[in-house]
């Protein structure tokens, strides 16, 4: 499929899913289910840093406009987009990344996906709750929110990943 078309389709899909479905779910215990970081995760390996930051900011602000958070999602998704190349570099294999592959579970293997997506989700969620709560004496509550939400977001992202992505090429 054409790359630009695929990205815009996914942009719309993640936006509508987050706004209409996952923002409406309430679990208690401070759990906030966010699946849209998967969009930034799944962008191609060879995407430039400026489009990456802009896409992250754009998706964040579109979700903000529909959930009365006024810039909170944009800020945290931007943070994650900025750290994506750094984390990718840190966990790179010896021969680097194949630009034809997709940074997903099926192309890169379970271990790589769990480590990379886990760290990116931690950056995103921790920043989100830090800015939202914004009190240093509630650090424990921030961490509890972060860890519980990561568990939920990661599992639901896995389900969505199996729906929208499959092995790009069978070698």
């Amino acid at each position, binding site marked *: 499929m054409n790359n630009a078309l695929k990205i815009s389709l996914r942009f719309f899909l993640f936006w509508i899913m987050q706004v209409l479905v996952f923002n409406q779910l309430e679990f208690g215990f401070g759990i906030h289910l966010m699946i849209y970081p998967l969009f930034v995760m799944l962008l191609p390996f060879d995407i430039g840093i400026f489009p990456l930051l802009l896409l992250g900011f754009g998706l964040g602000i579109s979700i903000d406009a529909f959930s009365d958070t006024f*810039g909170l999602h944009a800020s945290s998704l*931007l943070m994650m987009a900025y750290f994506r190349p750094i984390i990718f570099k840190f966990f790179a294999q010896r021969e680097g990344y194949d630009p034809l592959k997709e940074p997903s579970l099926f192309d890169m293997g379970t271990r790589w996906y769990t480590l990379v997506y886990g760290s990116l989700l931690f950056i995103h969620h921790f920043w989100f709750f830090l800015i*939202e709560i914004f009190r240093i004496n509630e650090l424990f509550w921030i961490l509890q929110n972060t860890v519980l939400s990561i568990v939920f977001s990661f599992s639901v992202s896995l389900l969505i990943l199996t729906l929208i992505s499959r092995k790009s090429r069978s070698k």
Partner: protein
Amino acid sequence: MRKLIAFFERFRVFLFFAFLQILALSMYITYLSFPRLQFLTSANAISGQLYSWEHDLTKHFNLSDENSKLQDENIALQAKLPKSLFRLNNGIIKINDSIYRQQYEYIPGEVVNSTVTKRNNYFTINIGEKHGVKRLMGVYSPNGVVGVIHSTSEHYSIVKSVLTKDINIDVTIEPIGLFGLLKWDGRHPTRGNIAGISNDLKIPRGSKVLTRGGSGIFPKGLMVGTVDAVYAIEGEALWDVVITYSEEYRTLQRIYVIKNLMLEEQQQIEKGIPEDKEER
């Protein structure tokens, strides 16, 4: 000069990132305090419409609960009608009571979008300027106080609910009559706190918490909740009062916006208070 250009060259990614980050954070902070740029909130036409469609789909799930709530309210109102009162004094007929004048009017509406798990929860309702809703009007449901109007558009409004950090509605604890400010600590959507209650008075569990009606936003005596627990705050002569809200905000649908017809009069006279100390 060349060094400056080299600096920008080197850090251009970080500078771009910092620029966007500052943009997002400054927007977040300004919106929290004042709704200046309204087009980004969910009261705008597109998102309001979207949430109306969604609400049309999902509102029927709670229909039986909503109906019984309305029925309870009807029963309470029926009981106050003249036909359900027993006449004690035959022969005395009251005509057109001029002692009372209408002070509050109520505009009915429905909640079309709401959250309860965030630190600051805002509700979108399907009535707006066209129906006479203005900023800083009160909102309540048959079971309890809901919040204050935060911003409005033509057909929709956003309510700053009691589930926000600094909602600060003035309340009294009956039967003692203590005054305090309603707060929320962001933990549980059924529990709130009251700040500013000095600890020289005993507060029995289960005391009713009602609105005080001091700021003219709410009438006096609307239900807020009941006292659940009272803790001592270390190092301060204050109680930390935990209350249970009487309204279940997670299933809230029908609300009324309260319009105070005498608000201007009250504000006019309160202008005369000398400003020698800080006011809330």
